[in-house]
Structure formats: structure tokens, C-alpha cells
């Protein structure tokens, strides 16, 4: 456990070397959020509530979902690069789990971006836009917890797609397409309240809702009491399903690598 914590910290620290990256990443997040806030302000026009959703709620959705989606990015070509240059076999010789190392490094990077890109952007956004406060302190706590579960869902989906690099020449295309699905269906680009009904029903059967929309709904108090518990159980369910799926691909991939000698 200590080793993996060390990996995460190391990554966190490495990110600090480029000071431009630090300032710019924050502005990057800020601007991305701003674009969508402007679009929805214009779409709302003079209306105050549409389908029971206020502009303030939409703004909150974007600040959290879009802001986090900016922070929760990592190098998704990592496994492919390791496989292509053959260095993955060296990784197997090390006394640490490759998967956990990958996860902890990604978390370290994510943490850096949350602290140095997301939080400052969040504070600056609040200076020019009104966003909803959390329903209650408990909601905030549950939201943070649910956010971490959301991260795991996001990471595991990426992990599954990355394992396909054992078979494919390049996973770049698939990773890109996957991210389009995540961005649209998780509500980070389009608040899920406004999705056409059939699409909305479909999305509720996928893990995408669990990534950002569940934490947002907990924060806003659209879920409370037992519903929060239920939503988080669904998140955990997806984590389990995705973890098992990912593991199957991973094991098969490693087997293929060993049999064919890379």
C-alpha cells in the first residue's frame, strides 16, 4: 500500500515541474466551463425554469461534471506504449502490481489536477456565476464519496479499452470514440435532464450516469436518504462488473503476450 501511495505522490510531484502547465491547466478548465455556461445562459434566455431545472442547477452541473472531467484525464495510451515497446514484460518482473501502479499514478495525476486545476477554476467560476450550494453537509460528504466511485468507473472503462492494445495495432481510435460516449452520456457536455426521454432511459442502463451525474445529483439534493445509498450501490455494482470484465481482458491479454512472446 505504501508503495502505491509513493507512486501516486511521485506523479503528483512530477506534475509540478512545469509551472506553465500548472497555470494553464487551471485556465483551461475555467474556459471550458465558461463556454458551456455561456451557451446555456443564451439557451435559457429569459426563461428561469425549464423542465423543472433552473439555470443555476445547470451551472452547478457543468462546474462539477465538466470541471471534473477535465481533471480526471490521464494518458490512455500508457498500456499500449508499454506493450508496443515491449517494456511491459519488465513491469511483470517488478514486485508490484502493474494495474495498481497504473491506477495509483493516474490517481496522483488526477489529484494534482483537482487541487491545482479544478479547485482554483471552481473558485473563479463562483466569482462570476451563481451556483447551488450543496443541499447539506452530509450531501457534500456523500457527493465526494460518490465522486471517487465515479472516478473508479471512469478509470475501469478506460482500463478495459486499454487492454485491447494486446490485440489491436492501435487503440487510439477506440479510446477517442469511447471518450465521446463518456463526455456526452455522462452529462459533462449536456446535462442529462435535457436528454430526450428514450436516450435518458438508455443511459440509465449504462455505467456512464454513475461517473458524474450521480455525484451531481447527490450534491444538489435530488437524491436523498435511501436514494443516495441506492445510487452508490449502483456505482459499486458497476465498479464490480467493470473490474471483472477488465480482469478477463487483462488475463487473456497477458496470456497472449506470454504465449506469443510479445
Amino acid at each position, binding site marked *: 500500500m505504501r508503495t502505491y501511495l509513493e507512486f501516486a505522490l511521485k506523479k503528483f510531484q512530477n506534475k*509540478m515541474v512545469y509551472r506553465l502547465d*500548472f497555470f494553464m491547466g487551471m485556465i483551461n478548465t475555467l474556459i471550458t466551463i465558461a463556454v458551456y455556461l455561456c451557451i446555456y445562459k443564451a439557451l435559457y434566455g429569459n426563461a428561469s425554469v425549464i423542465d423543472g431545472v433552473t439555470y443555476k442547477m445547470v451551472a452547478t452541473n457543468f462546474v462539477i461534471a465538466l470541471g471534473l472531467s477535465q481533471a480526471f484525464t490521464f494518458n490512455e495510451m500508457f498500456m499500449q506504449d508499454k506493450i508496443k515497446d515491449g517494456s511491459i514484460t519488465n513491469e511483470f518482473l517488478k514486485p508490484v502490481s502493474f494495474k495498481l501502479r497504473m491506477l495509483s499514478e493516474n490517481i496522483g495525476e488526477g489529484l494534482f489536477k483537482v487541487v491545482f486545476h479544478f479547485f482554483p477554476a471552481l473558485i473563479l467560476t463562483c466569482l462570476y456565476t451563481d451556483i447551488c450550494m450543496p443541499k447539506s453537509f452530509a450531501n457534500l460528504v456523500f457527493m465526494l464519496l460518490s465522486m471517487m466511485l465515479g472516478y473508479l468507473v471512469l478509470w475501469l472503462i478506460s482500463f478495459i479499452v486499454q487492454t485491447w492494445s494486446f490485440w489491436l495495432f492501435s487503440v487510439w481510435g477506440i479510446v477517442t470514440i469511447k471518450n465521446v460516449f463518456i463526455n456526452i452520456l455522462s452529462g459533462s457536455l449536456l446535462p442529462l435532464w435535457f436528454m430526450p426521454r428514450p436516450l435518458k432511459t438508455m443511459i440509465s442502463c449504462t455505467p456512464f450516469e454513475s461517473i458524474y451525474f450521480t455525484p451531481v445529483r447527490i450534491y444538489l439534493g435530488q437524491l436523498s436518504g435511501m436514494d443516495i445509498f441506492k445510487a452508490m450501490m449502483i456505482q459499486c455494482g458497476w465498479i464490480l462488473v467493470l473490474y471483472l470484465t477488465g480482469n478477463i481482458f487483462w488475463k487473456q491479454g497477458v496470456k497472449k503476450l506470454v504465449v506469443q512472446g510479445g
Partner: protein
Amino acid sequence: MEHMIEVSHVKRYYKVAKREQGMGNSIRHLFKRKYEIKRAVDDVSFTIKKGEIVGFIGPNGAGKSTTVKMLSGILYPDDGSVKIDGFIPYKQRKQYVKNIGVVFGQKSQLNWDLPLIESFELMRYIYKIPMDLYEENLHQFTELLDMEDFLYQPVRQLSLGQRMRGDIVAALLHSPKIVFFDEPTIGLDVVAKEKIRNFIRYMNQKNDTTIIFTTHDMQDIEKICERLIIIDSGKKIYDGSIQDIKNRYTSIKNIKLILEDGRKEMRTYDTSKKPMNQIMEEIFRENQVKDISICETEIDEIIRDIYEGSSRILSSEL
């Protein structure tokens, strides 16, 4: 004979950011950086005649590549001047570089995914090489370097040695008067190295091409160069023939001993300070010797000795 290359009192300094360890320092580093001045090239002068082959050596970071960069027109010197074939390289770039070829051993200019021939074609257009010269050179070079077999294979499938040969051809197709080789044999096997060395010698003899090359391989130096320039910490510390430097070391002998009890020993003696017979006498008096061999100092060793600055006899003279 007229000088092809004249370098006089060239200086080149860099500002280097200092990086410190630790979390606190990383955070501080985000906001403020410290710099220090590094004297990459510090008052270097030399001249090279047309048709000379000069080996340019020095430890890593000695200022070799910075010097080569100034000679090839990539960098201005901070002070001093460079004049090559009547041009000031860094001021008349486009005109000047038509006459030179540069081979970077570690930076290929070949297109990774395509056959060599495609990259060569590009060179033909870039250097406006007349068709007959292009074909003549291509034919001759590929024959000399034994490349016919892999001219039409994607570069990514070639071995390092094959790729290096491709890079050399790409840099020489326009028949440059001066060629800079930057570590052309790095990482190659003995056969490939030998091919490249032969080729370099041939180019020099046949076309009277002036050649400067940097290397870490002393075999390259011994087999190709007449002249050697050594720089260290930005300063020129030796400039002269290989033979000369070897002569200065002829008095240094390495004596290998195998003793009765099986121990092996390696000793270095300076015969200018102590006559050989006295050395031998001492050895045989103090040891039970089973076998003995006396060797000249290898050029590798001489160079290492010079780099280390602990020159046993040359320190004052160099």
C-alpha cells in the same frame, strides 16, 4: 594550402535552470527559478585544410556538439568568429549549407515508415540535385555501403547499421565539400562500423571531402583520422596528429604479470623516468613471475587519461 575552416576564439555560453530536490523545492520551483551560466565553448580556435579528416573528441558535455552546431550554422557564437569556405555559417545559412552534409548519429532524418528511396528522393528536391549526379551518387554509395538489398524496405524494418548507412547516404547525395559526422558509429556492430569507416575514408580520398567527426569510439579515430582535436570543459586541450600523441606516450608501458600463485597484476611504468632494465630487475626481484607481457598504451587509454586530467606525463605539455 588555403584553410577550409577557420575558427577563432569562439565562445558560447548557456543559461541553465537549476533544479532542486524535494517537495518544498518543487513548489517553489513553480514560481521562481535559479539560473547558472555554463561555458559550453570557451575560447576555442583551430583551422582545418581542405581534404583533412579531423576527429573531434571529448567527454560528454565537453562542448563538441555546440561547436559542431556553430560550424554548421545552427548557432551564433557569443564571441569570436567562424569562417568556412568563404561563408559565415550562421549568417549565410541557405547559401552555406548547400556545401555541407551533416550526419547526426542519434537523430535520423529518414522517414520511419517509408523505404529509404523515398527519403532520398526528398533530398534530391531539397538540394536541387541534378538527375545525373543524383543517380551517379546513389548508385555509387549504395554499392559501396552494400545497400541494394534494403533500399526498398520501410526504414522501421532496418537494423541500426542499415539505417545509419541510409542516413549517411541521405546527407551526402548532394556531394558536399564538407561533411560533419556526429557519432556515426554509435551503437553499431563491428562489421557495420568497418563499412562506415571505409566509406568515410573513400569519400575523403576520392572527392577530397573535408571531414569532421565526433565520436566516442577510439577505433574510429585510429582508423580514419590523421588529426585529432580534443576538447574538454569547453576548452581545446589537444590539437595534433594521432601519431604525435601516441609518440608522447611511447614511454608509458603496461606490464601484465601472472604470478606463481596465479594472481594477475597490471602495472604501468614510464620508461623515460626509469630505464626498462631497471624496471625488469625490480619486477623479477620482488615477484615470483610465471608469465610477463609488455604492451604499448592503447589510444583508448591515452584519451581516458587525458580526460581524467591526471595525465601521467602530458599534463604540463598539453
